[in-house]
């Protein structure tokens, strides 16, 4: 025991308090996450891109009235990188590639936060109801989930987005309709697993309410895989969103990486590589960063590593 002296008598530690212990534990967890260099690299990338999104209005001259529309410089079409005023060159239609890259990070952030946020909430709710209630309710909900799962995510989202008509908002909407399914599955499986722990029965014997047991015992112990999956999906969703934009399901002219890649691809054959490459690189870095962080979280939050602490 760390807190006993040589005679085995306890040393009083008056400063101990629940908050302090929880903070210390949080610190330990953070330390564990940060002890993995690839996770740190992922975090640096994420912070870099978040910074880019946050400071976009200061890094570039915001387009008016809508800063998410690419500004057009009709006097500087298809200029290569290094052109004064356009450090990363311009597109076929005179759009500044740098502007697109910077404001595109905002669009991507919007896309991934909205989609992950909405789908995690829906998925958690549906998975929790299925796992907690069980029986017929579980059966019905899971068959619905199976129907969704039987169609590949990308194709399903594509179909919905095509029906709704080409716009960036509709891409967000279609991804929300598709992505909750995975979380519902994970959540249900986790809840059924966690429910078997004796501490859940112990709480019932005490007489605590079902809602309390769910929020205090079951959800916190079931959430870890969902957090990891959500982190990984922050990257995957931008990738899929860009794909949908690339094939023309977004408005043309908006500062979005997939749209930019799409608009620039015609010029690649004629040697104008820059209009597609820089936004493409951003998509790659974004997906990579969240995958690294997700993997790091999975390792750090794994219960097997947890018990070693």
């Amino acid at each position: 025991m760390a807190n006993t002296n040589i005679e085995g008598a306890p040393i009083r530690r008056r400063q101990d308090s629940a908050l302090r212990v929880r903070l210390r534990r949080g610190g330990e967890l953070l330390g564990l996450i940060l002890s993995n260099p690839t996770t740190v690299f992922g975090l640096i990338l994420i912070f870099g891109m978040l910074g880019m999104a946050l400071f976009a209005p200061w890094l570039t001259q915001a387009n008016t009235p809508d800063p998410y529309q690419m500004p057009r410089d009709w006097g500087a079409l298809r200029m290569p990188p290094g052109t004064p005023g356009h450090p990363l060159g311009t597109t076929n239609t005179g759009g500044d590639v740098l502007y697109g890259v910077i404001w595109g990070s905002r669009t991507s952030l919007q896309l991934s936060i909205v989609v992950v946020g909405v789908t995690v909430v829906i998925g958690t709710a549906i998975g929790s109801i299925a796992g907690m209630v069980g029986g017929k309710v579980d059966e019905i909900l899971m068959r619905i989930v199976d129907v969704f799962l039987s169609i590949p995510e990308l194709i399903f989202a594509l179909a919905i987005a095509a029906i709704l008509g080409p716009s960036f908002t509709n891409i967000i909407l279609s991804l929300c309709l598709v992505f909750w399914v995975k979380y519902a599955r994970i959540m249900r499986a986790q809840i059924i697993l966690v429910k078997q722990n004796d501490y859940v029965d112990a709480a019932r014997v005490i007489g605590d309410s079902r809602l309390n047991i769910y929020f205090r015992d079951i959800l916190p112990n079931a959430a870890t895989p969902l957090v990891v999956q959500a982190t990984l999906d922050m990257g995957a969703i931008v990738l899929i969103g860009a794909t949908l934009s690339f094939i023309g399901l977004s408005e043309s002219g908006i500062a979005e990486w997939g749209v930019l890649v799409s608009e620039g691809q015609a010029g690649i054959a004629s040697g104008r590589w820059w209009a597609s490459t820089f936004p493409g690189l951003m998509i790659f870095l974004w997906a990579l960063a969240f995958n690294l962080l997700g993997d790091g979280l999975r390792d750090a939050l794994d219960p097997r590593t947890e018990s070693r602490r």
Partner: protein
Amino acid sequence: MTDMSRLPTPEQASEAASGSVLSLRGISKHFPIRAGALQRVVGHVRAVDGVSFDIRPGETLGLVGESGCGKTTLGRLASGLLSPTSGGSYFNLDTAALSKLNAAYALPEDARAAALAPLEAAHGIATMPKAAQSRFRRNCQMVFQDSFSSLNPRHLVIDIVGRPLRVHKEASGEALTERVVELLEQVGLGRQHLYRYPHQFSGGQRQRISIARALALDPELIILDEPTSALDVSVQAQILNLLNDLQAERNLAYLFVTHDLSVVEHMADRIVTMYLGRVVEAGPTRTLFDAAAHPYTRALIAAKPDLAVDDPQVAKFAALDGSIPDPARPPRGCHFHTRCPVATPNCGWELDDIVRLLERSEDLFESLSDVSRHSDFAGELAFEDEGSAERLAQALRSDATPASMRSAMESLTVDGRTLRVRFQEVGEVQLSDRGPDHIAACVIKDA
């Protein structure tokens, strides 16, 4: 499955002078077995089947049996974690209420409901009003076997032990902390452990935390589900002594569920032995250890490692062979007759026993093509070749078959490839009186 004869007789009831903390009457839990694409119910596992007993204030009742005999399920039924398929549990009966309960169960089934109604309303765990249910929740606590899984890994000790007090709004803030410290000190822990996570403790310490949590609401009954089976022997002794001390201080009643006879001998005032979901014997600990009436109880006691196995009487029971039969299809007559070392012809030998014998001899079992039953006790076994039926008949007449089983066969004929057999029909073996406060379900009356 509420069966009159498994209930205590009026004489036994009168001995329970001080009432009962918890009374189970004919309580059953059947789990459905589902099969096929449509998940239809094809049978039931009778985990607990018509069990009745009382837990008296301040006593330790040991519930023993092999793994799979339904004792853990019974513990969960008693604590209210599971709801029974049939039967009732009644909480906090005084002497008068207990004798009313016994009188009601002595009535024939159709007249029973009316007599039970007032008792159900006041004491029935499923039927009593909300306030009484909350009182039951506070008064009946539980300690689980696996101390790893019974403490939420994300909660601090103060939250775990203080939670019952919070839920029932007994204390908060500074007062709560002080109450938790008091509870921790009672189980041999202290203030320095308040702000720690369960994983920072050893198995024995975690079980102490579990006990502190169970004590928080000052219950009258704690159900201990194998509380020491996962612990080292030395730690086991500490926890058992702690439980004994706490019982003496607080007049606690324990339902001690275990498979460990040495623990139960040390702890229990009375013992209930379960086999395949039923009570086969119940009585005071001393009586059971000195003169158990049921061969199964004797086998369990003989299997205790510290007894001298040179004693031939003990050795006979020491090694129970075979495994527990399928609880979805329990044997006829006495459930235990398939493994009983002293079985008689009247113990319920049946067609399934021949099938069990066949399972041990591979070639005969493989040539078996069909079993047609006239009843559980009579039927025909058809084989693919001529020799098998005759060979089986010879085996059944020889020493390879228990003598009691041979004498239970009323007829045994071979007709070409079929073997016809009929056993004498035997009813269920009922619990009967064997002495003061001592009941057993065995056909041998003067064991």
